[in-house]
């Protein structure tokens, strides 16, 4: 199997020693064949998944959804409704699996925690001055600590894209390390790269390795707040990175595409990417998530279609 990882294993412990070694390592990663990457992602999207396999994929996808509301207009009532929906996505069919988590702003964590209490649903909170990340480090860390103290099980941080694009990789690295420390032992850390702002596939590969080296538990494509969000190609690239990272270090890291995934068909395409790239070990909501809100309703409508044989409609799922 061809990998895109640097060959010498000993390099990994040394690469974060200084700014220059880190830069040398990241720029030493092989360049991405953009045409090949997109062709591969497109060809994996042509698989036809039907009947029992489709039913399995839909349930798996539902269990992987991070049900998200990140609006300025979020009210406690909306967050509670979202929590209830995460626990029982389809109240008319209790065999529907619960989603993986609800994802909210830090000040809504306590409300969300209450709403999902007693279920397997986790509470994820965005932090570090989401979505721009343009705040001093102290503020970002306080943001994280508050969210963790309020009971967040997972923290979704954004990297400092300005520093990354300016080539100051060590600053980005140190920040992730500091946030990881603020998360403590209880909360898992998802690192958002905002791939739509990184311009090139090479940068996405570098960011993936940088995040993994700094101790991310998950690498996540985007905030959902910019024009280009998760695409099959950039998710495929990140899946290759986590596969290579585990081959080299034995550490497994999760992937979360977010934003722009709205239909069951899209979600199933991503699951095919996961299975064919990273492998079956990642087909679990501990290692793969969808950051989405409207996707869940489409999954539920498709699930109803499979169960009853007739097409469902938006009148039969909740309005968020």
């Amino acid at each position: 199997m061809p990998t895109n990882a640097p060959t010498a294993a000993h390099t990994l412990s040394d690469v974060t020693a200084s700014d220059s070694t880190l830069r040398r390592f990241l720029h030493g990663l092989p360049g991405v064949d953009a045409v090949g990457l997109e062709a591969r992602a497109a060809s994996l999207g042509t698989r036809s998944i039907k009947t029992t396999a489709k039913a399995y994929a839909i349930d798996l996808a539902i269990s992987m959804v991070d049900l998200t509301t990140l609006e300025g207009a979020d009210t406690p009532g909306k967050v509670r409704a979202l929590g209830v929906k995460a626990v029982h996505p389809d109240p008319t069919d209790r065999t529907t699996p619960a989603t993986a988590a609800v994802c909210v702003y830090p000040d809504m964590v306590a409300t969300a925690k209450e709403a999902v209490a007693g279920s397997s649903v986790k509470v994820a909170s965005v932090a570090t001055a989401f979505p721009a990340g343009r705040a001093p480090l102290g503020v970002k860390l306080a943001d994280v600590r508050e969210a963790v103290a309020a009971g967040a099980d997972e923290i979704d941080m954004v990297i400092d894209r300005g520093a990354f694009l300016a080539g100051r990789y060590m600053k980005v690295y140190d920040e992730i390390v500091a946030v990881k420390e603020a998360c403590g032992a209880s909360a898992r850390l998802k690192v958002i790269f905002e791939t739509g702002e990184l311009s090139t596939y090479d940068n996405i590969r570098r960011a993936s390795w940088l995040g993994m080296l700094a101790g991310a538990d998950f690498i996540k494509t985007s905030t959902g707040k910019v024009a280009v969000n998760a695409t099959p190609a950039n998710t495929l690239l990140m899946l290759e990175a986590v596969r290579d990272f585990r081959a080299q270090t034995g550490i497994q890291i999760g992937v979360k595409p977010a934003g722009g995934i709205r239909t069951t068909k899209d979600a199933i395409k991503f699951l095919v990417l996961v299975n064919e790239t990273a492998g079956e070990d990642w087909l679990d909501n501990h290692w793969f998530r969808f950051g989405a809100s409207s996707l869940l309703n489409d999954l539920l409508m498709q699930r109803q279609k499979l169960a009853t044989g007739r097409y469902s409609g938006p009148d039969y799922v909740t309005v968020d």
Partner: protein
Amino acid sequence: MSEKTEKTEQRLSVFKTYKLYVGGKFPRSESGRVYEVTAKTSAAGAAGKGNWLANVPLSSRKDARDAVVAARKAFGAWSGATAYNRGQILYRIAEMLEGRREQFVREVADAEGLSKSKAAAVVDATIDRWVLYAGWTDKIAQVVGGGNPVAGPFFNLSSPEPTGVVAVLAPQESSFLGLVSVVAPVIATGNTAVVIASEKSPLPALSLGEVLATSDLPGGVVNILSGRTAEIATPLAAHQDVNAIDLAGADDVLAKELEIAAADNLKRVLRPQPVDEVDWSAKPGIDRMTAFLETKTVWHPTGSLGASGSSY
């Protein structure tokens, strides 16, 4: 010289690819299937028996599903448009049809086995029907709505509102006049439609899509599918996001089946009339419009009534 004449004689024929009309676009069937359409037998018609006319898309249930999604998406803006505006757009359709009269005369003649002059009369009647319904858009509310006399200090108003997404099985025999006679009243009142064209002669319907696309009609208000009526109608009748179904083009057996499927989400069902008795050229009345209207009634408090019996 002789070479030049040969060239003009050898000009390759340019066949038209008939395609579906869904969401304002002209897709092929998702399934990639097509079926052959042949001209109807006629002594007077130009085309003889069994003459091949075109290959048209054989729609699948997924095409039907996509059409419902498009119709649902278009419903908000179309039902929210003013009745006056809808009337203008429907009249515009008539104008566009007038410009393509020759084409439709030819297609109707082939589809129904009519002479050219009879086909021309059918096309004229069809254009007039669009004009008729264009005029009705802003008048139907006065006819079926209005103030209700109630006891108590209320001003009580009823107004008709469109039902929603309507699946329309176009008549099988009258491929153009019949089609327009069932589609125009549905959209005149603000519904959006998923239309299944006549199975044997879908060409006028598919060409109508091209007219609709150039008539300011928002994409998705009318979606036209060709194929086996039973195959497409069954999932539409059971579809939870379709609010009503017009069974004009279904035979007795199919109509019964579809009615049962439609009961699941309490769709409004317009039963087919006995085929022999339908005269599509007769004056249509307003029944086809009211079949897909809901009545909304509002009670507006007026305060206590004075000695005159009215507070305003």
